[in-house]
């Protein structure tokens, strides 16, 4: 087969300029068909979107291209020649780079050591560090090459992954949900990077569920549904709604959001929390004031790595109990309580990391339901009630549309978004009085994201207090009643969402809110009063 292959139905790119072509790719797993007879063609210098819901087979297809997964049938042409990618090292050698959704970094090594591992031979670390700084500067992805990976936030880890790929000057860059952890400004910078790369002739395969982004960035899109190609389009000529229809086969549900009821009791009160980070590279929290009342959703915006992790750990109780922290949960001084005791007060929590923290990878979904929901009748006299456990998991799977092989499926066998749905569902089904959610829809497709947001609003209407930490401003504005911004360990006063907008909150994200706000956050427990004054 030569580069001038006959123009088949699947291909939209001119045959001569094709960098990559997939024909009839099929991959079956015991429970599901991940890809069925998928055709895909990517031209040189093209930014090509692959759209689809969670479990539609996007990630599997990318892993096949990158040599992680072997297809059962079908062939792949690279620069017009048939190629069988043996493994990721081979893929990198022929010029394919990939940024995974689940990062593949060694936590105990530094950034520069991680990058060095992906390069052939033994590079000089000092020179490589300078190179990393140069590339990260050039492409607006600031990262300190000497830091240990385990101390980095999710957003910073992603920057490392992107920089690592760029260092290898790939011909094809695969990006799996790259902007999910970036600010709007940073995402725009990344787009400039990608456009620049594309102009230099590098092709980009771009997986994302953010339809607006795809419309802004991509030249062509291939839509997958349930493992099959359901269409091609030029995203620049489509609307977000029309692409969502191609993707999920129906219209997007709209989030119903009535104004919050005023005057709920405070369920979470943080009164002047200052705390040095446990981690030398962590962020110190400085005088954080925050109140979340029953019947409202408060959002915390900010770029990852600005203290979100530390603040959430102080709320959840996972932070090492040094001294007494000024945290009240459901009117109880909770500063010294363990995470388990705080849950007993009626708090539930969705953490940022799904595998290994929100869920045990090697355990089944039923066993993972037991992890936090065990107080809901799953344990009697120290014995596990297996039926109650399986029923809860099955209910969660059904209510939240988790695509999986049932309650006995291992957590690690689920795609990221599906596991997220399961964890969010597990916490919500416990009918919490206070729900703290970090990145509620990270990596979740549009249909499921809309469902999760609606569920959060419904839970609020039922009287729960909800705190959402997210880096997606649109999401926060869609569901939140009040929004605060965290920057460099300081938390801004909370603004009523209706009185603010994306521009203002975006500016606050760089830490400049005193200029906008003539009253600096008062010392002592002022958050409630502050809210009343502003309302």
């Amino acid at each position, binding site marked *: 087969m030569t580069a001038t292959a006959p123009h088949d139905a699947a291909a939209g790119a001119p045959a001569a300029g094709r960098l990559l072509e997939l024909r009839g790719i099929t991959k079956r797993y015991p429970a599901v068909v991940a890809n069925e007879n998928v055709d895909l063609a990517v031209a040189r210098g093209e930014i090509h979107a692959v759209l689809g819901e969670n479990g539609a087979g996007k990630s599997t297809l990318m892993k096949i291209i990158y040599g992680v997964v072997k297809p059962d049938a079908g062939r792949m042409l690279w620069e017009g020649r048939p190629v069988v990618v043996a493994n990721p090292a081979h893929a990198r050698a022929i010029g394919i780079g990939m940024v995974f959704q689940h990062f593949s970094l060694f936590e105990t090594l530094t950034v520069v050591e991680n990058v060095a591992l992906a390069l052939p031979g033994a590079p000089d670390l000092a020179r490589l560090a300078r190179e990393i700084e140069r590339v990260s500067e050039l492409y607006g992805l600031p990262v300190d090459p000497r830091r240990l990976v385990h101390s980095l936030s999710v957003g910073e880890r992603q920057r490392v992954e992107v920089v690592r790929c760029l260092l290898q000057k790939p011909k094809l860059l695969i990006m799996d949900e790259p902007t999910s952890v970036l600010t709007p400004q940073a995402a725009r910078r990344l787009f400039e990077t990608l456009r620049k790369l594309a102009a230099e002739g590098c092709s980009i395969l771009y997986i994302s569920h953010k339809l607006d982004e795809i419309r802004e960035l991509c030249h062509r899109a291939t839509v997958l549904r349930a493992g099959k190609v359901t269409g091609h389009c030029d995203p620049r000529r489509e609307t977000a709604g029309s692409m969502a229809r191609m993707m999920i086969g129906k219209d997007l549900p709209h989030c119903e959001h009535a104004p919050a009821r005023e005057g709920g009791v405070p369920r979470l009160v943080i009164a002047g929390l200052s705390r040095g980070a446990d981690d030398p590279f962590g962020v110190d929290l400085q005088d954080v004031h925050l109140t979340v009342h029953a019947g409202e959703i408060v959002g915390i915006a900010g770029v990852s790595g600005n203290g979100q992790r530390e603040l959430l750990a102080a709320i959840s109780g996972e932070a090492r109990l040094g001294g007494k922290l000024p945290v009240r949960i459901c009117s109880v001084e909770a500063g010294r309580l363990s995470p388990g005791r705080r849950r007993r007060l009626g708090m539930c929590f969705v953490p940022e990391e799904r595998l290994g923290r929100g869920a*045990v990878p090697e*355990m089944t979904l039923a066993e993972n339901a037991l992890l936090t929901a065990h107080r809901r009748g799953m344990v009697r006299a120290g014995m596990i009630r297996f039926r109650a456990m399986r029923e809860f998991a099955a209910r969660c799977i059904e209510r939240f549309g988790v695509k999986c092989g049932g309650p006995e499926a291992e957590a690690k066998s689920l795609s990221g978004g599906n596991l997220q749905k399961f964890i969010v569902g597990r916490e919500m089904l416990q009918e919490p009085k206070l729900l703290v959610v970090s990145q509620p829809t990270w990596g979740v497709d549009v249909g499921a994201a809309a469902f999760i947001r609606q569920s959060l609003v419904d839970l609020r209407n039922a009287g729960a207090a909800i705190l959402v930490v997210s880096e997606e401003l649109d999401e926060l504005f869609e569901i939140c009643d009040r929004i605060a911004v965290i920057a460099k360990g300081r938390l801004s006063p909370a603004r009523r969402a209706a009185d603010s907008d994306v521009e203002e909150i975006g500016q606050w994200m760089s830490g400049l809110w005193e200029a906008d706000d003539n009253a600096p956050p008062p010392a002592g427990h002022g958050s409630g009063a502050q809210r009343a004054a502003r309302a």
Partner: protein
Amino acid sequence: MRFVSPLVAAALTFAAGLVLFSALGRDPLAAFHAFFVQPIDDWNGVAELALKAAPLMLCAIGLAIGFRAGVWNIGAEGQLAVGAIAAGWLAVGFHGAGSALLLPAMVAAGALGGMAWAAIPAFLKTRFNANEILTSLMLVYVAALLLSWVVHGPLRDPQGFNFPQSKEFHDAALYPLLLEGTRLNAGVFVAAAVVAAGWWFMERSFGGYTMRVAGLADAAARYAGFSARRTVWVGMLAGGAAAGLAGVGEVAGPIGQLLPSVSPGYGFAAIIVAFVGRLHAGGIVLASLLMSLLYLGGESAQMTLDLPSAITGLFQGMLLFFLLAADVFISYRLRIAAPARAPREAAA
């Protein structure tokens, strides 16, 4: 696949044993027969097999509870010795009282003694974050010296011609024999009951579940609010109690008194048993029988083949190393490649 590797390891151990025997100039088949068949070709042999398997499975099930939670108790040998001392002290102190309560009291004392010894590394771990592998291992040697002091000093038999040993225990302080003409005693029921309890705890109870979560994903256990201290304490104390019971089984069983040494390394061999048994109750029973056979075979080989006593340890070591190797090769594939050249070739 995880459950295949113990079988592969056992088969490789047998095969390597054959090679070893022929290298030593013995007829491999005859040696094989002497090592693995002869020890159990009569009822007495089978009784001995069960007798030696009992302390192994006791120690192993206790250790497995900790190992599953990532609590690395390496000191079962010492906890066994302290359990034996505690039970032996009662047996000597109430010698001749003839009470039916003496044996149950010894069982309880043995378990408590093992737990007390295991509590030291647990305290050091939770209070000072001292590595329990090191502290529990070091305490093995302290326990051995403690036992030595006991049989040289306070509990030495006055009529024992100054031999470092205690009085022989009264019948009321011994497990009743089960089979006439063998040494098999009621201690095997204790072992079976503890293995069943261990299975129940690990597979059916919520406490066991929290331990498994702690072992699989530390951050998830913290997130769910399971106490890390509790995990360490439960893991260490379970191992200590079970090892202490094994110690009681030895002194109230085949030995019948306190001696300067009460165990031929059961506490260490049990670590191998626990891993060969994949940290599961059923697997541990089978693995303890295999390990027991290696002990018997070692003795038999010394007698009939004129091989040194180190042969037992050699086979134990081979079994462990083959198991570890099998686990590695099941999870990873060995590829011989020149990493610096491969990319250029592929790019060409």
